[in-house]
């Protein structure tokens, strides 16, 4: 495996773990972290979060992971699944790393 890909997958795995833990510890999802599959929908089906959870999620993503979710369609897309949050988090992280 190329080192760039290895490094990307490692960052991705770590972020996935953080998002899963946040969902369990901060939002009270009644699952073990490893039971939360990466493509699980967050709302309606899947984890079945509701609109109050959505507000909590925004707060904790910013407080715990430093991710400010935009209020436009990019933000809406980012809150569809666990993996879509990870996508946004990594994108933000890369933007910060690139700026430094």
């Amino acid at each position, binding site marked *: 495996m190329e080192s760039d890909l290895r490094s990307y997958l490692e960052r*991705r795995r770590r972020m996935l773990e953080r998002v899963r833990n946040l969902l369990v510890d901060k939002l009270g999802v009644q699952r073990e972290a490893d039971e*939360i*599959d990466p493509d699980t929908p967050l709302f309606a089906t899947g984890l079945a979060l509701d609109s109050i959870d959505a507000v909590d999620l925004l707060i904790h993503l910013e407080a715990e992971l430093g991710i400010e979710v935009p209020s436009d369609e990019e933000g809406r897309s980012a809150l569809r*699944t666990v993996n879509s949050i*990870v996508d946004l988090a990594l994108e933000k992280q890369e933007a910060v790393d690139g700026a430094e």
Partner: protein
Amino acid sequence: MEPSEQILAIRRSVALSRLPHVSYQWITGTGAFEALNRVFSRELYVRDGQLVQGLLLDGEGHVYADCVVARDDDDYFLLAEGPDPRGLAEYLSLHARGVDDFEIVDRTATHDLISLDGPYAWELVARLVGQEVVGLPYMTFFHLDGLVCCRSGKTGEYGYVLIVDREHSETTWNSLVELGRGFDAAEASLEALDVCALENWFFNVRREGRARVTPIELQLQWRLSRKKSFVGSEAVRQRLEEGLTRRATTLLSKEPFAVGDQVSLAGRVIGDIVNAAHSPVRGEWVGLALLDLAYAHPGITTLRVGPERTSARTVSPPVLQNRSLYVNPQVHSYASREEDEFPSLVVP
């Protein structure tokens, strides 16, 4: 009408479909809960009027049926894809041995299921059954004048399934076709519905469900209870103890690929395709692959698929921005769609 046009109708307006592939069974009697609880993969705490998505597994932990269970007063009904109605009734009876006072009534032969899917499905169904349907929450149902209206669907758009007794189903269908003219409604095939399900990461029991893997590999743990025993739960538990080695992951490619194709990375095979279709909305092929766990993540852009070594990349589904996320029944209507502004359907 071509499947691609049907799919575009589901994504932009509304489409009607008949669902002869769905089994419709009622389970009645004081033993109904126990009979169903033995096989249903989730906790069976269902409120009256609520629908719950779950699975029925075989003894090896493989998916036998993709199903929705509904509680209707003291009874339950089941909408299931995968087995035929007779096979499903036999499966339920077999695993309910010893349970007293329950009856399985196959209503597949006496009722028809009609689905409406699309960002304006709510508006068309409201014309038929009344405005109150607009406020119906996802995964609930109500009875009205001899039909059952379920707010469900597997396309990522507003979706409704109407359960109509066969005597009235043709009239209902014709009324919807007539009312649908004002919505440019299409008649969608199962093939079109399956493509929409794949684009939106809804499980398909006829495709990835036949891969002889457990719900763990298919990322369906949210449909499993770890608190109760049910048919197949022991096999699933064993798989978890052994450790996951592969996981279903979504792929996109500009070139065609097919079920059974191998997926490779830097010359090494890392998985195979279990579902694939052309997405007319994206203008590319979308698929689901069972990939070695180390690579079962979005963002890998250097994959090769099939004998032609087609270039492919892993992505996070859904692969489009459903218009239904942005259509608000309080504000929008099909008539005003040209004036309303919505984001592009395609996620870059």
